[in-house]
């Protein structure tokens, strides 16, 4: 079980909290201690909107350990409207609805459960914007 690791990642997993460099303005995700753009260590927490578009996507049939029960699922690179591109699973979507450039929004879902008696990890996935 990874009590400490999942606890440390909660703000990123549940609220998409990343970092904003106060020197160059870069938005980074997940949280960093040094800016990958200018090298500054002057960073502050920055909550991302959760809105983005699919940058690229693939279907996973052979999943890593812990994710076997979810196959087949879509793994995507999502370009957030603030700039960062993050790797995330898509949910509540069918193959015919998945395409590069499609608008998606962040939702919180069960990512992983450590057996029947271990902790449940909740984190971000992305889903197509709800039709109006």
């Amino acid at each position, binding site marked *: 079980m990874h009590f400490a690791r999942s606890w440390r990642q909660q703000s990123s997993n*549940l*609220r998409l909290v990343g970092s904003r460099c106060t020197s160059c303005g870069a938005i980074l995700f997940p949280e960093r201690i040094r800016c990958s753009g200018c090298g500054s260590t002057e960073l502050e927490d920055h909550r991302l909107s959760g809105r983005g578009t699919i940058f690229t996507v693939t279907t996973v049939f052979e999943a890593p350990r812990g994710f076997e029960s*979810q196959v087949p699922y879509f793994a995507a690179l999502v370009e957030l409207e603030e700039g960062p591109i993050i790797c995330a699973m898509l*949910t*509540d979507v069918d193959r015919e609805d998945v395409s590069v450039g499609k608008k998606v929004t962040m939702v919180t*879902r*069960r990512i992983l459960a450590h057996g029947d008696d271990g902790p449940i990890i909740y984190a971000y*996935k992305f889903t197509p914007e*709800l*039709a109006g």
Partner: protein
Amino acid sequence: MKPTRAVGVIGYGGYIPRYRIDAAEVDRVWRGSGKKEGQSFKAVPGPDEDTTTIAIQAARNAMDMASIDPNELRAVWFGTESKPYAVKPTSTIVADAIGALPHANAADWEFACKPGTEAMQAAIGMVGSDMARYAMCGGADTAQAKPGDVLEYTTGAGGAAFILGPGQESVAVLQASTSYVTNTTDFFRREGQEYPNHGQRFTGEPAYFHHIRSSVMTLMEEIGAGPGDFTFAVFHQPNSQFPLRVAAELGFARNRVEPFVLTNLVGNTYSGAAMLGFAKALDVASPGDRILLASYGSGAGSDAFSYEVTDKIVEVRKRGVPIERYLKRTKSVDYAMYARYRGKLRRN
């Protein structure tokens, strides 16, 4: 009961999973006929959904509508009877997800299908006593039913969240609330058991009907109102018949109740049922409308509320997600996929 300071709903939101199973499909598997009376579907949580994720989305939708700083919430209270953790609050995860921690009270409430409205009464008290400016309450469930049981035809999934705040900021101001509670065992789930047990017809007259009639009649007496004074009435909805029958017994016109009975579309969402109906009523209400909300929880009790809709509803609800959108977002699954999604298939 009413607080000394005016209190009301400043934002609300609901959530219903995307998947649906037809009651006829359940019937096909367990009775072989595939027959059903009328339209009857229930919402099925996806393989990565549970009560926590449903509550989080409902809470986010409520926060978007209320448009307040989450740090101003002093309570995040959710009611459910399908907690993903037996020990570990769902509400702390919800509160974290909406950014309301750490200076908030977070707790899970339990009273069969009515913990959400209990939390609503407590939130009204908290805001009404000026202990808090805002407090969130809600109810959500992935309703459990023993495979093949009559309950399995209707047990759905969904939830709703409400943010209570000062009356002058509200889209609907509370007029009064009552509770009627007795020690009546009509439906229960024992510790360690996966599925609930119920008393068949005993869940009707001495349980659901008696308690709702009692809470609503007490409420109407307290505020000097009759059924004709309410534009809409929302009742707990374990099936589509009970709320219409109790409404008729109390004198409410069918057309003021039926649009908010969602059971044929999403099933009985337990703690979410009456609250989703209330959210749907607020979605279509006009300023000046009065809405009656009456929950029911086995064990047994009913909480009744009278709200008056304000002018603010017109602008504020534009920031929210109408329940109708979730009702229209559907994907049918057969019993096999339902069994997989609900974790009824064990691989080890």
